[in-house]
């Protein structure tokens, strides 16, 4: 019998060794919002293998081994952006055809894009890759942890239907809102065909929205588009969200205010574009108006906001200042978008067992004086302020 090659023996012995244990990440803060409206004082988060293994409380003088303590700080769940358009719109919108609900957005997603890192520095730990607004149906929006590769067969969060003017003006159908609605109706009508046959991928994608298995996301910027979306949702019994704003987040606020009672009746959620320093002062009161009208809403971050100093924190601050309940504001960037993206039991809250996406702030996140001190994404510290920022 020939002796085993030395290299193979060495390899086997390495494999037989016990895996090196990574010590759990322990973070202690002054206060945390387990979910919006549910604060907990002095929590200790024990994070292991990307998940929150345990949530306990700590006391002064009792130091856990290796714990990092932010005594006066506030922890929230990592922000979830419900509608993240890729920087390169051309990459994520099929130009030749406008009704492409079968395309999966994660197939064109580059986890190494520096843009994702910039949003991590603003506390966005996961987002939904949204189809471009210039296609009637750009494809299936997929939830991803910021900068990580999603599961290849992950279910889509929603299928996007853009009704804004951005879909028009090309050498393809549709060229108008009425044409867009007609195109969608025609697509759904084809499903009713009496002769049994195998559905093509486009039809399969549309059919998946009918039984509510997959939600839809209508993108609208003015009253007729919102009305069209509500009519269609009612006709076809679709469930989902109305995303207000074109790709730059512009929409006719007055139109939307008129539609509040109808929006509430429709049962569709509303996603508002982030507020910015440039947004109309009147826009800043809209979140509070929606809340008073009993409409569930979330925020999304339009292209124009990217890389700017504002972002979700500024949006929270501005909307809270105009009368929105802070817990509702926080929910609109954490638990609500997470549940609408179909990952409410994964992210958006800080309960035991959830994916460890959390942000540590020097104060409440809706206070503009608060700074971000730490961002944890799937159990890994991915961002800390630079030394000079921490001093400031």
């Amino acid at each position, binding site marked *: 019998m020939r002796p085993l090659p030395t290299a193979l023996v060495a390899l086997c012995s390495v494999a037989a060794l016990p895996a090196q244990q990574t010590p759990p990440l322990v973070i202690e803060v002054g206060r945390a919002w387990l979910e919006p409206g549910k604060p907990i004082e002095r929590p200790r988060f024990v994070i292991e293998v990307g998940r929150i293994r345990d949530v306990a409380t700590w006391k002064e003088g009792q130091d856990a081994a290796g714990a990092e303590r932010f005594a006066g700080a506030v922890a929230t769940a990592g922000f979830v952006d419900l509608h993240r358009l890729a920087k390169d719109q051309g990459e994520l919108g099929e130009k030749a055809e406008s009704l492409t609900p079968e395309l999966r957005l994660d197939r064109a997603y580059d986890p190494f894009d520096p843009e994702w890192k910039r949003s991590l520095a603003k506390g966005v730990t996961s987002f939904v890759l949204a189809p471009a607004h210039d296609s009637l149906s750009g494809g299936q929006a997929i939830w991803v942890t910021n900068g990580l590769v999603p599961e290849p067969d992950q279910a889509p969060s929603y299928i996007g239907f853009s009704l804004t003017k951005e879909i028009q003006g090309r050498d393809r159908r549709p*060229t108008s809102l009425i044409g867009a609605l007609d195109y969608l109706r025609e697509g759904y009508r084809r499903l009713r065909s009496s002769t049994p046959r195998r559905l093509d991928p486009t039809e399969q994608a549309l059919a998946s929205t009918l039984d509510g298995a997959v939600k839809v996301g209508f993108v609208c910027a003015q009253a007729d588009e919102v*009305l069209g979306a509500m009519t269609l949702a009612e006709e076809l019994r679709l469930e989902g969200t109305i995303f207000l704003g074109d790709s730059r987040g512009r929409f006719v606020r007055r139109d939307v205010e008129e539609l509040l009672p109808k929006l509430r009746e429709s049962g569709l959620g509303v996603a508002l574009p982030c507020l910015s320093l440039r947004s109309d002062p009147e826009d800043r009161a809209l979140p509070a108006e929606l809340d008073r009208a009993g409409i569930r809403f979330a925020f999304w971050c339009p292209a124009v906001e990217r890389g700017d100093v504002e972002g979700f924190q500024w949006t929270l601050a501005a909307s809270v200042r105009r009368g929105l309940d802070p817990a509702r504001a926080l929910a609109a960037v954490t638990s609500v978008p997470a549940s609408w993206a179909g990952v409410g039991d994964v992210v958006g809250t800080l309960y035991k067992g959830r994916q460890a996406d959390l942000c540590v702030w020097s104060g409440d996140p809706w206070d503009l004086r608060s700074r971000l001190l730490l961002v944890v994404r799937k159990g890994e510290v991915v961002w800390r302020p630079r030394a000079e920022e921490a001093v400031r």
Partner: protein
Amino acid sequence: MRVAFLLPLLVLAGTASAQETVLLRGAKVFTGTGAFQDGVEVLLQGGKIAKVGPSITPPAGAKVLELEGRWLTPGLVDPNTSLGLDQAHVNEESDEVTPHIPILEAVSPRDQSFRRALEDGVTTAYVSPGGKNVFGGLGVVLKTQGETLAKRVLDRGNGMRMTLGSMPTAGNRTFRGGNPDSMFYRRPTTRMGVIWEIRSAFYDADARRASGDREELEDDPKVKTLIAALDQKLVVRTTARTDQDIRTALRLAQEFGLKLALDECTEAWLNLDQLAAAGFPVICAPPSVETHPDNAEPHLDTIKLLADKGVKVAIQTGQGLGALPLIREAAFAVRRGLPRERALEAVTSVPADILGVADRVGRIAEGLDADLVVWNLHPLSVFSKAETVIVDGFFVIRPAQAEGSPALESAGTAPPSENRGTRL
């Protein structure tokens, strides 16, 4: 902002009082036909006209509006507009034949254009699909003001728009940006091509109708709509401006047995006898407008000449033609000899008849919607102003406080700012 948001709520809260029973008396009344009459009183109840006649005893609790020296007409009906649309001609341009697409879904219910029309006394309007397609779609008849869009709509699929002439050829070409695969590489590119498209669409629909597969037809709204037109269940709103287009329209109507309502008909003065013989109503282009699409030559007397021949004429402000307010267009026609009564009928009862909504609007008669306008002078005077506009019993426009109208104030309804509110 907060105040602006609360405004609709205030209006909704005031709904019950706004539709209270009101007796209008003392005005000269035009009921939709004939001349202005003295001594006619109108009782409004629950958003409807409850009674019209002399010396009505107001029921207990009714408010009385003394309108001495005022002129009362039905709310005006504009039979062709692009109110609430982003542009004058809205079409789905990826196809020339889109007869089934409803324009209603492109209407912004709170567009400022509705408010402007309302201030000119227009309470009901027909919003038409654009003329960039051979078959543009289905129009909608709706009120210019109302609680909700659903309540405003009188008929959501009224009239199938068909356009003759050169407008549907615009944008179609043999090559676009050097790309022969462009969807605009298609017929029609000529006036003859337009007619070919129309005939071919109707022939196809006729063949499908003959084949009789009902279930398959249910899934094809395009053909279903064309068949409804062939069966005369749907009026074909045909835009024909030039002499030859008008004659073509009449020929097509005869060939396919269509029920037409002719729009614009700028050169109708060249086809008076044919139009009178055909018996189709004509919704005339605004007489004040001098330049028309298709280089059609207008004649200031057209409306009078058509009326003299016994043609049913209505006046429209049209789509992007730059017309004056509807009542001024009617006054223009009067200046060229149209009797005043005919001119007022052409903007009230006749368009209501043509649109098939005469059971709701266009006249002051019992059972119809309480849509009325109180004018400070004879409405056809250049100085006339719609002082008070009532839609469904709601006082949506009322005289400014400064001008003073003690009679109206005594009616005790909500102040004007509340009723100006934005309701949908």
